[in-house]
């Protein structure tokens, strides 16, 4: 650093060497299309991903309402639904087959287009490059393609609502052979199921491009002084998530291609010989439905961690900032995330205990499933230890972090039961599993998304979200999700089978009152989300102006204006001197030291 402070122009003129500007340096865009639609800017792409997730989560939520209404009041007519599906919902009453369509689409939309896109691609795209001190992702063009490919996948999936016979009915897991044989397997299994497989294949391509960008950016675009040990924890989480995603989606893509070939080209990968469906002998031979299950769950279980790991990172970033204390055991925390990522590839068989598995294999899958709870438990204890004895600032963001902790523990505890084949045999086909995965994968990830929204919204839009509305949103949602998913565990223990569209004429009739309670809870909790929608749309224009660092946090995104300029750091790169964990000490501007603060650390 012996040179004098260079003028900003010297830093900005990369063309001074007479070379073509490298791919990472794109100037500010000109015109509407390049600025807002086909933008190369990671911040625009991150917001686009979040907007897509918002559309998707609204769609998925409405689908769940339709299912819940039908489960609680099977004869009720939903006005207008017959226009969407004349066959599936004649007079607005949902048929059993259409119920399965709704279930398939709800699961697919939520898992892929909400829980994968929002916490990972959405926030990750916006925040990660700034946190590592880069002006953009390593490959901005791939990044733009990644979003538009994902948006295309969503359109292809939603298009299946508007084809004859409607969407697929084989669930988000699309088990073969029903997903592979075509129209004999029921309504929606012809064009609808093909659209499903094509959509997911396209989605895989988008996520692979995104993960590639995340990895290369984290490894190669870190600014001076930003060692791996100084990376903010949420960037660690996104990095590990992208490694998991790379492996998972590069297996799901082949699985989808083989499924599409079985459906359209007459091959027999997943369809056994001599199979009779709807009184018709299927013209296939020798395939194995188990092959699909193995390929799918090899992706499917890591997918759970793709959804949840960013949440772990978000909580570990927000809690120390709100508790004004360093995160307890940061290296242990990162080690736990690596361990979870590694173990997530050894447990996929626990989804298949009922599929006819050798008891020895079942044990082999059960043991790592139980072991994976150890890093998850350590993580939870680290958060509790961080908050313990602190003067926690009760912002909406920190409330959602605490809520994350609660549902993560609740959902995790029921996982102990399901990890054991002998108990899973009884519970696997029941609502116990529905309650379990909604808590630990759905609600926990959603709370991570909410926490991230309340935390980074000021940086993204330059305006604060309304905290009063935010706190109402938190408490009502928190109570609501327990009303919805806690009773499902009891229903499951009582033997309430899942995937049925109604419980009117059989032994499950006695469970209808509890189902009605859940339905009312789901509708009410859904209505509460209007608070959130109002808050984010109103605050974008009317919220209080956000300062650069409203939460007094340490990482680099809080050193730049809200919202950041096109190249994040105004033609320069920050120099990093500290880790992200320097809270609770006398720093130059408060009880914390920013990562780019050149001062030596004071004694704590």
């Amino acid at each position, binding site marked *: 650093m012996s040179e004098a402070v260079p003028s900003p122009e*010297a830093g900005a003129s990369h063309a001074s060497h007479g*070379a073509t500007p490298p791919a990472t340096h794109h100037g500010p865009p000109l015109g509407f299309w390049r600025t807002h639609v086909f933008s190369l800017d990671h911040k625009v792409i991150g917001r686009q991903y979040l907007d897509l997730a918002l559309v998707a989560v609204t769609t998925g939520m409405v689908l769940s309402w339709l299912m819940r209404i039908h489960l609680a009041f099977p004869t009720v007519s939903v006005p207008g639904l017959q226009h969407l599906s004349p066959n599936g919902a004649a007079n607005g009453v949902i048929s059993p087959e259409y119920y399965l369509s709704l279930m398939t689409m709800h699961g697919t939309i939520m898992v892929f287009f909400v829980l994968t896109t929002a916490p990972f691609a959405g926030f990750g795209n916006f925040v990660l490059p700034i946190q590592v001190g880069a002006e953009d992702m390593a490959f901005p063009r791939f990044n733009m393609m990644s979003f538009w490919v994902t948006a295309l996948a969503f359109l292809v999936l939603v298009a299946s609502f508007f084809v004859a016979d409607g969407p697929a009915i084989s669930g988000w897991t699309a088990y073969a052979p029903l997903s592979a044989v075509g129209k004999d397997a029921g309504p929606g299994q012809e064009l609808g199921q093909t659209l499903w497989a094509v959509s997911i294949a396209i989605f895989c391509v988008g996520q692979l491009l995104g993960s590639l960008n995340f990895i290369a950016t984290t490894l190669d675009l870190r600014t001076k002084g930003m060692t791996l040990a100084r990376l903010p924890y949420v960037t660690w989480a996104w990095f590990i998530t992208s490694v998991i995603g790379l492996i998972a989606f*590069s*297996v799901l893509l082949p699985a989808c291609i*083989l499924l599409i070939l079985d459906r359209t080209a007459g091959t027999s990968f997943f369809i056994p010989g001599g199979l009779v469906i709807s009184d018709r002998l299927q013209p296939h031979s020798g395939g194995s439905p188990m092959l699909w299950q193995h390929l799918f769950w090899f992706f499917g279980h890591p997918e759970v961690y793709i959804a949840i790991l960013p949440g772990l990172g978000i909580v570990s970033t927000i809690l120390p900032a709100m508790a004004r204390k360093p995160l307890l055991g940061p290296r242990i925390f990162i080690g736990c995330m690596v361990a979870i990522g590694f173990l997530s590839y050894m447990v996929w068989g626990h989804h298949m205990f009922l599929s006819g598995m050798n008891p020895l294999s079942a044990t082999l899958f059960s043991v790592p499933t139980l072991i994976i709870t150890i890093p998850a438990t350590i993580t939870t204890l680290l958060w509790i230890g961080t908050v313990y004895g602190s003067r926690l600032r009760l912002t909406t963001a920190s409330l959602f972090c605490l809520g994350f902790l609660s549902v993560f523990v609740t959902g995790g505890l029921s996982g102990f039961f399901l990890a054991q084949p002998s108990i899973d045999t009884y519970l696997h086909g029941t609502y116990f599993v529905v309650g379990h995965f909604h808590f630990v994968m759905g609600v926990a990830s959603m709370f991570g998304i909410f926490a991230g929204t309340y935390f980074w919204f000021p940086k993204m839009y330059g305006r604060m979200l309304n905290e009063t509305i935010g706190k109402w949103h938190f408490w009502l949602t928190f109570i609501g999700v327990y009303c919805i998913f806690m009773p499902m565990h009891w229903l499951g223990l009582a033997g309430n089978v899942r995937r049925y569209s109604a419980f009117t004429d059989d032994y499950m009739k006695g469970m209808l009152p509890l189902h009605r309670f859940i339905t009312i809870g789901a509708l009410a909790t859904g209505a509460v989300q209007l608070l959130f929608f109002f808050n984010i749309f109103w605050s974008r224009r009317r919220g209080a102006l956000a300062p650069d660092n409203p939460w007094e946090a340490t990482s680099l995104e809080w050193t730049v204006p809200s919202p950041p300029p096109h190249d994040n750091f105004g033609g320069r*790169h920050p*120099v990093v001197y500290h880790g992200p964990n320097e809270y609770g000490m006398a720093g130059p501007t408060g009880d914390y030291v920013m990562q780019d603060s*050149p001062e030596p650390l004071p004694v704590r």
Partner: protein
Amino acid sequence: MGMSNLPLRSTPRPAAHPTAPSTGVWVGVATISMSFAAYTSALVVRQGMGTDWLHFQLPAILYVNTIILLASSVSLELARRNHAPAGRAQAPDIVVLPGPASRTASWLSVTLLLGVLFLAGQIVAWRQLASQGLFLATNPSSAFFYILTALHALHLLGGLGGLLYVQRRLRRSGALDVGPALSAATLYWHFMAVLWVFIMLLLLVRL
């Protein structure tokens, strides 16, 4: 360092990230390897579970294609080695001699030609199989043959695109900053050759 006042909070933005293209390709190599591992395990499981596996003779032209692809890897390596060595470290006012740069361009053209020849050879192999009545849906063995070879060809097309991009930039800006892109493209192309050898061995053992 050695300054009395505090160190800088920021530095001028670096001109480029020379390692990013290679990292990107390495990550791509991992991804593609993983997806071919998935096809391989599907092949092994499918062959083991069904009783309908049909063994057939691979078309002889595949051996010629293998030699062509390996040769293209060698020619691309020659292109890379002839590229102005350590161009990045030199001062920008040093004129790069036209000799090595044009030799790089020539070897690059040879590589492109061999790549296209390989793809043409693959099409001949598919036609030969089809003329024997072996199509995608005929048998799982032929299905895997077409899937593995077609997907490899698709990825190779991507590699050809990358080489064309490098060649265009070489023509336009004359060499100095092409290094990282050329190295990355070479890495990818070598991986295509290795992947093809793996596919050939798999097909030889299993079909």
